[in-house]
């Protein structure tokens, strides 16, 4: 049988599926990296406020996080192949529109649509791979997906630096051919491997409660650092979170078609691995954000150099994730996942020794350790979660995993933003975000002595 046969019964089919999911992963991670580097250009071209600039990132994360379960549900109902192709098409359309945005608000709205597309990609990637690969190769497959994500994290910021030389719009337009290629490739290669689970409908009430509750929480935390904790919006955001997030759990427990099937958590392995995925999101994702600030602020690097200097974290993931995946297939995932968290903790603790003029080699070392720890944790933990649920529930299980991890990531970024904005004067912060801080020092900055990590 030829390697180029894409029939579902072909022994090579699993590799074709992996190529599709890897393309989706590459698209999502490259897009994140290019956008971070384009933030200064966005601010200058669209005259956004600092809060709008931050929400260009946060809104995509929230939408893709919240809708990932609904996307998983729709995928179980209508088929993973259709949902995956739809994800690519929505991502392409949103990227095209985002490049034409004339204001910060318009851009945020296009990022909402981009988040919808990403939700369909995230919800199905792990489920498609799990359907196609035998259990003893799942760790390797998950590790490969994580490795591709790490490649995207390495090339994203560098590519972003090149694209903004043309215009910030190209950071978004670059995604269009890639996403259309992904849609065509998925339509050509993928087959429906599992029966459709049409016993359950959609949970609009639960989705609405979670959207508004989480948005309120993240808005409150991110705005609190900038505008003060007594601001009305901050108060309203916290109130919405306190009321709606517990209500969401109640709706899911009693509803006939819950978007988050709480029965999945009756499996102790699944529930503990889910909790670990949430904690991983909470502990890791803000670090990249924090180091973009550190490299462009106290260390005075250009955005492109800042992107390059972040690379050790992704390189660490790149090396450790496939090795950890293979080791998990042979020896189980529990010890590996726990060790990954400890290695990450050592890296994060090491970062507390960094000062404004500490040589870069120390940042590189700690970032590398955090990256290695992430790779050691992610693929074994994901493989364990996916292996613990029946085939027809993997769409919703994959969605639950991404939702929990991304909820941790969004809260983490908002928390770090609140700490940073509380420690650094708003004007200095704005200069750093808009890229002015990497130019010759303005009078605002030259009158201050910046220290890291204690602030300016």
């Amino acid at each position: 049988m030829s390697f180029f046969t894409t029939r579902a019964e072909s022994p090579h089919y699993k590799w074709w599926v992996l190529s599709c999911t890897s393309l989706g992963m590459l698209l999502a991670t490259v897009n994140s990296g290019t956008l971070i580097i384009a933030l200064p250009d966005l601010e200058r071209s669209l005259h956004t406020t600092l809060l709008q600039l931050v929400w260009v990132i946060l809104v995509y994360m929230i939408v893709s996080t919240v809708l990932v379960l609904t996307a998983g549900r729709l995928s179980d109902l209508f088929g993973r192949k259709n949902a995956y192709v739809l994800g690519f098409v929505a991502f392409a359309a949103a990227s095209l529109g985002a490049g034409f945005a004339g204001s910060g608000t318009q851009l945020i709205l296009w990022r909402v649509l981009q988040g919808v597309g990403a939700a369909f990609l995230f919800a199905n990637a792990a489920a498609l791979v799990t359907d196609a690969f035998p259990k003893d190769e799942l760790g390797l497959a998950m590790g490969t997906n994580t490795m591709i994500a790490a490649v995207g994290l390495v090339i994203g910021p560098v590519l972003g630096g090149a694209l903004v030389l043309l215009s910030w719009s190209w950071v978004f337009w670059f995604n269009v051919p890639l996403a259309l290629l992904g849609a065509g490739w998925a339509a050509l290669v993928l087959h429906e491997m599992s029966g459709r689970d049409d016993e359950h409908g959609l949970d609009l009430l639960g989705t609405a409660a979670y959207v508004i509750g989480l948005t309120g929480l993240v808005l409150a935390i991110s705005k609190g650092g900038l505008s003060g904790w007594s601001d009305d919006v901050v108060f309203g955001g916290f109130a919405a979170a306190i009321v709606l997030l517990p209500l969401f759990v109640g709706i899911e427990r009693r509803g006939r078609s819950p978007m988050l099937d709480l029965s999945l958590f009756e499996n102790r392995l699944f529930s503990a691995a889910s909790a670990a995925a949430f904690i991983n999101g909470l502990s890791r994702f803000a670090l990249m954000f924090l180091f973009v600030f550190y490299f462009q602020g106290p260390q005075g690097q250009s955005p492109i150099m800042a992107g390059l200097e972040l690379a050790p974290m992704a390189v660490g993931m790149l090396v450790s994730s496939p090795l950890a995946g293979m080791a998990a297939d042979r020896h189980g995932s529990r010890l590996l996942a726990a060790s990954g968290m400890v290695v990450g903790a050592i890296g994060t603790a090491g970062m507390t020794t960094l000062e404004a003029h500490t040589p870069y080699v120390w940042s590189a070392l700690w970032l590398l350790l955090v990256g290695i720890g992430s790779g050691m944790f992610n693929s074994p933990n994901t493989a364990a979660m996916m292996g613990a649920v029946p085939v027809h529930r993997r769409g919703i299980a994959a969605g639950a995993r991404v939702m929990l991890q991304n909820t941790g990531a969004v809260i983490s970024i908002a928390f770090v933003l609140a700490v940073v904005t509380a420690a650094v004067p708003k004007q200095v912060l704005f200069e750093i975000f808009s890229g002015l801080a990497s130019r010759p020092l303005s009078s605002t900055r030259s009158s201050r002595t910046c220290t890291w990590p204690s602030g300016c």
Partner: protein
Amino acid sequence: MHMALWVLTGVSLLGAAVSLMRPSEARTRDLAGAVPVEEAA
């Protein structure tokens, strides 16, 4: 910012503890009979 980094370190260690406390795949019977990874291998 020291505080933020120490909090993130503590959260990572909490994650390690949670990962250690979960059952290993070999001893887990899942919801609908999916075969544990080690047994399948």
